[in-house]
């Protein structure tokens, strides 16, 4: 049997088509996902805005304005602008003397907005036409939209605080001597708290990568199918030659299962390492458990491959086609093909959980989901149990079909 294992391993590893579909293709897909989703993440980041600060006489009358702009990153302590530095700053200030000059910079697209002081000491934000169009929720980019919204809210808050202070000064100036009142003026009320429900920071895009594992595990069935089809006398001359040999079929099938498992495991492990360490997608900090999950998923996939390979009255290419169709179909309901598929997957989870349980691609996806989102290992081991049960059922069915010793037709 050792020689059979070695030979099946060599034939699997030396098959260029097999290597492409089961090693290169998943990595290419992961790379594409990474490129797509990293852009998605970037759109939720705050970008520094180039803003013109109109340092005219009105501005100079109120020293707090400069302090505020400095606070949000716009001015250096000495009042000069900081256009050379954008580290963690909401705005990059371009100091100008007049509003007309600020408008000129907006027209040249050097700045996206201008801030000036009004006669009553308030801050006023003007946004350029182009920036306003870009920040349109229907057409614009999220990062500009978010940054402008934050800037507008900060200016509104400054103006509100300024009005409050002015009113206190006018009505009850002694209150400003109370440290509590001053603290309240600077306080920012909130009606919600951020708490952590999971042990690991959730990643909205991780599910797509996890669904990729589901597809790869099912695609890898082709390892088992190819080997088993090559063992059957009714499917190939190779099968005929092996069947007339004195090596029992169960030994050949066991070798096929081991090699199929090993190849599937290696294929998924390489994908996991790539997704984890190149794409930076987390596994809940439980990588060793993810490896265990991959081992079980590879067992299920190999057993299913053996079962499909052993199906009677179907040619080897029809069986490979069936495995690809099954992989694509099940991956749809595991959420691989985008937001629509993911919503569909969630819908099935809610409305028809049995179908979800019966989908091997979904179960493989769940392995990683369980590790990422649950504190307890219980859901993970539940999924491991389901996959192992699938594996044993497929294995028993394959053994039943392969027990056949003679054929009616060849």
């Amino acid at each position, binding site marked *: 049997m050792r020689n059979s294992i070695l030979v099946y391993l060599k034939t699997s590893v030396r098959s260029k088509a097999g290597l492409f579909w089961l090693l290169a293709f998943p990595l290419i897909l992961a790379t594409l996902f990474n490129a797509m989703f990293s852009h998605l993440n970037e759109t939720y980041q705050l970008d520094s805005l180039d803003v013109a600060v109109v340092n005219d006489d009105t501005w100079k009358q109120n020293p707090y304005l400069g302090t505020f702009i400095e606070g949000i990153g716009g001015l250096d302590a000495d009042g000069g602008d900081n256009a050379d530095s954008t580290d963690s700053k909401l705005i990059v200030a371009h100091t100008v003397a007049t509003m007309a000059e600020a408008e000129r910079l907006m027209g040249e697209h050097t700045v996206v907005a201008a801030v000036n002081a009004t006669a009553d000491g308030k801050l006023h934000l003007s946004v350029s036409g182009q920036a306003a169009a870009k920040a349109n929720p229907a057409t614009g980019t999220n990062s500009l939209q978010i940054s402008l919204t934050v800037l507008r809210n900060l200016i509104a808050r400054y103006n509100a605080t300024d009005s409050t202070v002015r009113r206190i000064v006018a009505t009850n100036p002694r209150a400003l001597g109370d440290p509590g009142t001053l603290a309240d003026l600077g306080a920012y009320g909130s009606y919600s708290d951020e708490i952590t429900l999971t042990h690991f920071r959730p990643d909205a895009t991780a599910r797509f990568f996890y669904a990729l594992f589901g597809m790869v595990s099912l695609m890898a069935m082709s390892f088992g199918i190819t080997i088993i089809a090559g063992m059957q006398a009714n499917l190939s001359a*190779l099968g005929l030659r092996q069947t007339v040999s004195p090596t029992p079929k169960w030994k050949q099938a066991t070798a096929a299962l081991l090699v199929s498992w090993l190849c599937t495991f290696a294929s998924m492990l390489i994908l996991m390492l790539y997704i984890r360490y190149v794409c930076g997608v987390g596994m809940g900090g439980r990588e060793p458990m993810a490896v265990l999950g991959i081992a079980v998923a590879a067992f299920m996939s190999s057993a299913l491959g053996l079962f499909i390979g052993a199906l009677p009255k179907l040619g080897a290419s029809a069986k490979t086609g069936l495995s690809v169709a099954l992989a694509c179909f099940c991956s749809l309901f595991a959420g691989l093909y985008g937001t629509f598929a993911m919503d569909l997957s969630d819908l099935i989870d809610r409305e028809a959980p049995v179908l979800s349980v019966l989908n091997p691609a979904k179960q493989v996806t769940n392995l990683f989901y369980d590790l990422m989102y649950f504190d307890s290992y219980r859901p993970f081991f539940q999924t491991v149990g389901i996959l192992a049960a699938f594996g044993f059922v497929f294995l028993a069915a394959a053994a039943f079909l392969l027990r056949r010793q003679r054929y009616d037709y060849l």
Partner: protein
Amino acid sequence: MSDTSDNNAVHVEHLVKRYGDMLALDYFDLDVRRGEIFGLLGPNGSGKTTAINCILALLTYSEGSIRVFGEQLTPTSYELKRCIGIVPQNVAVFDELTVRENIDYFCSLYVQDRKRRAKLVDEAIDFVGLGEFRGFRPKKLSGGLLRRLNIACGIAHKPDLIFFDEPTVAVDPQSRNAILEGIQRLNAEGATVVYTSHYMEEVEQICDRVLIMDHGRHLALGTCEELKNMIELGERISVETLDLGEQGRSADRIVERIAALDVVIEAEYDGRELTVRCRRGEHNLLDILGILESENVTIGHLTSRPPTLNDVFLELTGTALRD
């Protein structure tokens, strides 16, 4: 079971195999003696491969009995299977393995001991003359070399009984000769060979006995000479004539005169050559030449050819085209 069947390498009695309503083997009988090269001839669809697959315990069958070296061969007769080798019609090797790896793998299905196997593999490589190609993958080999690899994979474990199912299909004459010589050498070393082919001259060249079958039935069995004696055709006489239909002679009338002879089965003239198929007789040629002389026909070239296995085959199985 009779003593005779025990002495045979293969004994098949009243074998019936049906594919649905179609009768593939119709009470088929076969005896292959130990140490002989046995030819199994038949047109496409005559049941040759079905018979071999039944003998190898690959196919189920409805009736009859099969014994190999006196024992019933079942899918789990592992010890008996060690004595059998098969060279299938289609090349059956792994494209991803080299020549040596392929032979070693198929040999390993029969021989577990690595040292013994290494020796057997080297011998098989030398036997088929693939020494300089041992590191090549099958896709790099020519059709003839590929056929030789196919043979090496089937015989490396030195089986006592080898089935060759049309091993020379699509092979050039040089490779074909090498393959046939190899089969004769295997036989000389003690192997019993069952050989199927469509090439009559090959069968005539190497087989000790030949069985012709059609429609799943045994039609004739014997040595090539015995088979040739079974048919009506005695000789085929060809006469090249340049003026059969000239100088006021009627070619049709002359051909009719020849065809009217008792020994003549059929006479044809194509405008250049007169072909006459004769029954066995001692004066066939003289009788035909007598008619041609009496008609003053000029004879250019004349040949008389005894019947071939091909004539036997066509007479027994007919000339109608098969699938």
